[in-house]
């Protein structure tokens, strides 16, 4: 069937195979659901699931469109909340796979004569794009908002391809206006939504430059773009209700929502700071955080992962060969695209360039967490950021599949058979497109990952009822938010993360947090019959204004005395992260001051030597995965013993808690760990089991001690902790004390350079 334009020009263009595209999308969705995470995961997954469920505000820019979509997904009456939000990522990526099928099929029309060959090659494009490591891995757990962005990319791509086909057609202007609207809407999901803009601009200039002179159409486009940006209004409205997740607190309303405080300068300033991500204070693009060659090297490192992840480096040769093959196929696909289908190339070519070279330049990353491990003394990203190039690898896959189709065509032309048969006999070359599906399955699948959920329960349960738990960063905080707010576990515990205590809004948010009753029926057995009274005082004894007045840092570099009642600690700034006490450190001291003797106060053992840096070692008592700070010095007793390197250990409590922990079994069952920067979490379990085993053996229970030490080794083996110390890798950067890197929650620190 031919398409006819308004101008009367008939385009001999077959109708796109929308039915097959839907089938391809459904097939990809089935794959994703088969490998879907059954619950939350490390890094930002818990934050986004919590934000979606509570209609809260995640870290800047706040992603209002994602939060709305996630909230709608969380209302779907099948599976757990986590599964529903994870499935949102799967659905978005499946939609993009279906659309990449349409794009590839359209491109192939002009140079692949048989319909079935186009269909098969386009299916290859969709499968390849869906199974590259990062796309697959990010589609089976909602760790980021990038799969939603990918769906917007794909939809805008298809609309632009349609426009390029018929720029004077009946719907051409409406398509452009719709594209502008979707770019605006995509920006409300993530700023990456704007990345398709330059490619659309190039396509318009190349296909119909006079479009830029049609001011009414341009005005309509600008208005549509503006309309697409209006979901940002959700942020100040929700922020004024002070949801549990209210990052950046983009509202001037201190108690409840109101007209005057919503339309205030404070709201505007805070909202714009959120949208512009001021919190992260990235340097100007002219100040490179790593050489551009190293930044391109990071892209290449993650490019290699796409076709065969090989997370433990057992098939590095094959990985490089596959990367070179798919790189070459992508180039061939791009050249073929340019040669035979110029109209859509003017969009897709610039799009690939934008999400590759331009994005590498714009992101301006430090060295990747696992890039050039032998290179010491360079600034590194806290984790591997392959997900920022998800769009790059997805679009590259389409070109790689086009390259594969071109290779197929060449082989078919050279074959001696009759026309349809020679295509058939040379078709096995397309099987190359299935390599990522097979090679990435093990690493991309999240099907058995339950350890993060268990870890959150275990850490919360290490804290006595109504306790305050000081944590360090992403991985010892976000999972706890998820457990508390989504699953309703141990909501009585107040989690205070040091990296966010450096901000102005987070301490204020802690003041808003209600005191939740301890649910003894669902708590661990160790607290049955526990009679801690519910505290009535707020977590801070000082007002929001007084909290705001705490400085960003105090320029003190010599040991200082911190005294609270019987507790007298020597705080040594030289042992703190920045060499001086920051606002976060001062907030922790304020928490100690206001809560010791009122609430149990703990510091998560993920915080490394933070207890020692604050001079609290004589007052610390290890209980499971957290260290309790006592108002008086801790001594040795029947239940409490000194363990070398760990300080005082509450043997009875820790053993009882250990027996209730779920993560050790989950880690062993999974038989692997998600990534190296967070491997400190299983390491903490392994250390705890080992320490406990030693202590138990010293108390005369040799069999019990052996069992615990074996468990320690099982955890270490399953999570491959020993890989960190593999020969030849000794200079590689090790994860932070327990993998709880500050990660993305870090606020820009305006503190002096560490002496």
């Amino acid at each position, binding site marked *: 069937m031919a398409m006819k334009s308004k101008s009367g020009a008939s385009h001999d263009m077959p109708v796109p195979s929308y039915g097959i595209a839907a089938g391809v999308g459904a097939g990809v969705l089935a794959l994703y659901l088969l490998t879907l995470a059954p619950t939350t995961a490390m890094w930002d997954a818990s934050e986004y699931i919590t934000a979606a469920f509570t209609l809260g505000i995640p870290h800047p820019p706040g992603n209002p469109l994602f939060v709305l979509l996630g*909230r709608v997904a969380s209302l779907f009456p099948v599976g757990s909340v986590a599964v529903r939000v994870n499935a949102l990522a799967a659905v978005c990526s499946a939609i993009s796979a279906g659309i990449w099928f349409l794009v590839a099929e359209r491109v192939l029309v002009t140079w692949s004569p048989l319909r079935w060959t186009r269909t098969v090659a386009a299916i290859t494009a969709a499968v390849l794009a869906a199974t590259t490591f990062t796309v697959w891995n990010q589609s089976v757990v909602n760790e980021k908002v990038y799969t939603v962005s990918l769906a917007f990319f794909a939809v805008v791509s298809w609309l632009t391809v349609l426009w390029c086909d018929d720029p004077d057609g009946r719907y051409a202007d409406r398509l452009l206006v719709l594209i502008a609207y979707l770019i605006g*809407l995509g920006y409300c999901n993530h700023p990456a939504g704007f990345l398709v803009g330059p490619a659309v601009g190039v396509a318009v200039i190349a296909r119909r430059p006079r479009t830029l002179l049609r001011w009414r159409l341009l005005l309509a486009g600008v208005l*549509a773009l503006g309309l697409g940006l209006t979901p940002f209004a959700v942020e100040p409205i929700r922020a004024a209700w002070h949801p549990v997740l209210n990052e950046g607190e983009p509202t001037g309303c201190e108690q409840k*929502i109101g007209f005057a405080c919503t339309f205030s300068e404070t709201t505007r300033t805070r909202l714009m700071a959120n949208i512009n991500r001021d919190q992260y204070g990235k340097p100007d693009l002219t100040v490179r955080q790593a050489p551009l060659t190293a930044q391109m090297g990071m892209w290449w490192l993650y490019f290699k992962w796409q076709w065969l992840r090989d997370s433990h480096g057992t098939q590095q040769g094959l990985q490089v060969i596959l990367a070179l093959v798919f790189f070459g196929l992508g180039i061939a696909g791009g050249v073929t695209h340019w040669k035979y289908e110029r109209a859509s190339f003017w969009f897709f070519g610039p799009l690939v360039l934008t999400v590759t070279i331009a994005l590498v330049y714009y992101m301006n990353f430090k060295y990747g967490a696992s890039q050039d491990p032998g290179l010491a003394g360079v600034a590194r990203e806290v984790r591997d950021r392959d997900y920022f190039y998800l769009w790059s690898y997805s679009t590259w896959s389409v070109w790689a599949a086009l390259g594969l189709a071109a290779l197929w065509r060449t082989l078919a032309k050279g074959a001696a058979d009759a026309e349809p048969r020679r295509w058939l006999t040379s078709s096995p070359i397309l099987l190359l497109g299935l390599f990522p599906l097979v090679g990435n399955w093990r690493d991309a699948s999240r099907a058995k990952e339950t350890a993060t959920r268990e870890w959150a329960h275990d850490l919360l349960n290490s804290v006595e009822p109504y306790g305050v738990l000081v944590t360090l960063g992403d991985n010892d905080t976000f999972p706890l938010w998820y457990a508390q707010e989504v699953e309703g576990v141990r909501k009585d515990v107040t989690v205070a993360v040091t990296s966010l205590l450096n901000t102005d809004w987070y301490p204020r948010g802690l003041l808003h947090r209600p005191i939740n009753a301890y649910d003894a029926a669902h708590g661990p057995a160790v607290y049955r019959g526990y009679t801690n009274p519910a505290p009535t005082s707020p977590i801070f004894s000082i007002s929001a204004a007084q909290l705001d007045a705490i400085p960003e840092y105090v320029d003190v570099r010599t040991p200082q005395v911190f005294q609270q009642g019987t507790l007298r600690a020597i705080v040594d700034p030289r042992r703190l992260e920045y060499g001086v006490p920051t606002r976060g450190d001062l907030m922790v001291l304020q928490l100690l001051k206001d809560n010791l003797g009122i609430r149990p106060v703990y510091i998560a053992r993920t915080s490394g030597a933070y207890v020692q840096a604050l001079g609290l070692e004589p007052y610390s008592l290890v209980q499971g995965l957290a260290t309790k700070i006592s108002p008086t010095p801790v001594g040795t007793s029947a239940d409490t013993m000194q363990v070398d390197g760990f300080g005082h250990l509450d043997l009875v409590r820790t053993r009882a808690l250990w027996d209730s922990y779920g993560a050790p079994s989950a880690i062993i069952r999974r038989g692997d760990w998600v990534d190296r920067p967070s491997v400190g979490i299983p390491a903490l379990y392994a250390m705890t089991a080992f320490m406990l085993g030693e202590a138990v053996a010293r108390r005369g229970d040799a069999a019990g001690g052996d069992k615990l030490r074996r468990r320690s080794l099982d955890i270490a083996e399953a999570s491959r902790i020993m890989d960190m110390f593999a020969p030849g890798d000794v200079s590689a950067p090790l994860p932070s004390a327990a993998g709880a890197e500050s990660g993305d929650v870090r606020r820009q620190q305006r503190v002096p350079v560490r002496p």
Partner: protein
Amino acid sequence: MRLQLFAPARRATLLRATAAAVLFFGYADLVRGGTTAAPLLIVLGYMILGPAVILTWR
């Protein structure tokens, strides 16, 4: 001949009015603290009705 309930121009106007109403009630519910109907209406307004309005604009 296909029976049409409304003329295309009338239908476009109706669609615009529906989209505006859905978004208005969505935001209104959000302002009063709603977390269920509000996101449903706002998503419907932006993701379905918004594009439909643009594609049928006359």
